[in-house]
């Protein structure tokens, strides 16, 4: 780690775009008038005082919501957009897959575009000729390669563009949302191609909403929010914060560190408004500081069907009768814990019910683990109601 490793440096970079249509750009055409939309016109700040350093062979994922400046960041690195203020320093050959079909001309064939796009990225025609077969082979469009690209599907354009950009011996590769286009096979090819480039030591920047891919490929993830860098850390931390625990699990970066072992209701049969007890066993492998538990009471599908005289509803459509927060203290400490709860009575109609204890993690609402228990309220099921409400009524005469 030294300054010699640096390949991309942002020094207090700001990029502002002007909103609306300008009648004339005459001021922009004059070199000595500074090119800044200024403060008296409506502007949008795509990149807001950004400082960052990327070293050789780093693979950096850039995540964040739409319109937070991810693509502008790549365009600044690629040099197609100039900063409004600040300084962008880069070195080495940069290949970018910023938009579909890199720099293809509709009327040229795939093969002609291949040579031409290579030239745009700094490769000679002879060098591209030597790689031609590899590129076409990878893109898997050998039959269409001598057809003008205007007849290509968007998937074919994406494949050819990706194939070219990853075969030009770049020192830095910028990838914008390419993992989202193309079919499953192509997504796998491109993932593996990126893996190879990363292993070769190519510096890689990947903008993607596919958190699993980002977590897999990158050894550093940055999160942008309204043009600012709000997180810049190892993938697990940033992805967890942004996408939730399941994103980490899907990416294979870890497991949910808390298991809900079992949930019991005692007694199993409870008459309406009689007391009952709940008991859960919770195994905390590692503390979850932002973990949260809730207890949900749902009627079973049979019960709902009986009430509505309709079909059996699917599990996800079952209404929640109760949603009770559970004290999450045991999630903060390693160990196996037993959680007990006592209910004095709840006026339910007869029928089968399900209690489920659900684990979540702030600020997300994904259910990470669940333990379920059945509860039967004996008696015959009445029509069209799920619960009784014990109301003490009073009738008084009213004079107006």
């Amino acid at each position, binding site marked *: 780690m030294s300054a010699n490793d640096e390949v991309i440096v942002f020094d207090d970079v700001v990029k502002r775009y002007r909103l609306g249509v300008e009648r004339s750009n005459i001021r*922009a055409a004059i070199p000595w008038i500074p090119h*800044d939309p200024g403060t008296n016109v409506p502007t949008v700040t795509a990149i807001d005082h950004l400082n960052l350093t990327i070293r050789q062979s780093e693979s950096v994922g850039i995540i964040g919501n739409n319109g937070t400046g991810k693509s502008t960041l790549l365009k600044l690195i690629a040099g197609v957009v100039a900063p409004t203020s600040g300084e962008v320093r880069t070195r080495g050959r940069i290949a970018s897959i910023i938009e579909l079909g890199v720099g293809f001309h509709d009327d040229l064939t795939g093969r002609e575009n291949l040579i031409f796009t290579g030239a745009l990225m700094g490769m000679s025609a002879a060098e591209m000729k030597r790689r031609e077969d590899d590129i076409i082979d990878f893109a898997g469009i050998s039959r269409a390669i001598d057809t003008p690209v205007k007849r290509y599907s968007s998937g074919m354009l994406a494949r050819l563009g990706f194939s070219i950009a990853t075969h030009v011996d770049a020192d830095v590769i910028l990838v914008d949302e390419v993992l989202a286009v193309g079919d499953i096979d192509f997504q796998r090819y491109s993932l593996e191609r990126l893996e190879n480039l990363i292993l070769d030591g190519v510096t890689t920047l990947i903008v993607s909403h596919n958190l699993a891919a980002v977590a897999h*490929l990158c050894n550093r993830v940055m999160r942008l929010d309204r043009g600012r860098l709000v997180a810049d850390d190892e993938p697990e931390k940033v992805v967890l914060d942004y996408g939730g625990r399941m994103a980490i699990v899907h990416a294979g970066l870890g497991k949910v560190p808390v298991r809900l072992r079992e949930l019991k209701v005692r007694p199993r049969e409870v008459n309406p408004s009689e007391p009952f007890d709940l008991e859960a066993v919770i195994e905390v492998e590692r503390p979850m500081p932002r973990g949260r538990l809730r207890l949900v009471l749902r009627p079973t599908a049979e019960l709902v069907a009986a009430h509505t005289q309709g079909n059996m509803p699917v599990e996800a459509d079952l209404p929640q009768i109760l949603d009770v927060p559970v004290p999450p203290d045991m999630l903060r400490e390693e160990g196996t814990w037993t959680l007990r709860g006592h209910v004095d009575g709840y006026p339910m109609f007869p029928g089968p019910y399900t209690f489920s204890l659900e684990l979540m993690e702030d600020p997300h609402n994904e259910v990470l683990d669940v333990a379920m228990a059945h509860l039967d309220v004996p008696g015959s099921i009445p029509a069209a109601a799920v619960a009784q409400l014990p109301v003490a009524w009073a009738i008084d005469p009213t004079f107006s």
Partner: protein
Amino acid sequence: MPDEQAAAGERDLGEAVDVIDLVDERDEEAGGEPVASGQGGVWEASSREGFGPLERTRRARVTPPSEHPWVVRTADTTIMPAKHRLRSSLPLLRMYSARQVQLRYRQSILGLAWTVVQPVAIMAIYGFIFSAFLEVDGGGLPYLSMAWTGLTIWMFVQAALQMGTVSLQNDSWLLGRVWFPREIIPLAPVVAGLIDLLAAAAILIVIVIVQGVGISIHAVSLVLPLLVLVVWGAAISVFCATVTIFLRDMATIVGLGLRLLFIATPVMYPEKAVPEHLRWINAVNPFGAVVTNTRASLLSHVWPNWELLGFHLVIGSAFLAGALWYLRSVERRMVDVA
């Protein structure tokens, strides 16, 4: 792979190692160049959900960054070693110009033959009007030789200026996608125009011989007017293309200017047809000087006006340098307004 079974149970790390092992094996088969063929266990391994972080066994095939110069971009400047910029420019200019020619005649039956058919048709139309109606003569030279000389040059001027002016605007979609030296775009129509010029010049030589004018040693001096032509064409193209990106009005102005220039330049008439007191117009017009002096050395077999051509070459080169400087000083803004 003996540890394949052992790794099967350990989801987190095992599979990642699996992927790398397979990749390396395949790389060796392909002679070091990773080629994805779409078959093999790689996909199976990496397609399972949750493949864990990429195991990094650094192969480090890239050159250290210290071997590349820094490119620094701010709002006002791009600092890039001139060698770096030039090296990427020249092959690209060649390819961009070839693309221009390719595109112009794509999906056309006559194709490249248009480079010959077009001037012949124009010659037929203008030649008929000028010689039959206006009774313009060759000014001591066969009319066809005289007019074709002018037309050969004019076709180049028109193509370079007309297509050059709108070139950046037409290709502005490319500006936002990939960085390359922007001056390539307005220079390409000029280079592509040289191909048409070559075709027209070949016909010119045939006409000159057929009409009995003949060719003398003086023809070697044609290099100088050619240089003036290309330098001025390039300068105007680069300047007008840059302005057009910011002000669309420029394209219309150039269109009008070209009509005026066609009348003011002795393309279809000899210079002698211009009244004595107006001949200075032809002298200050670089294209007029080119036409007049090309006729002098090719058709009249005399040496050209060295001073006048030299003057235009110097001014034109300065203009070209200024136009390139201008393009470079505003190129960073083009994406924002185009």
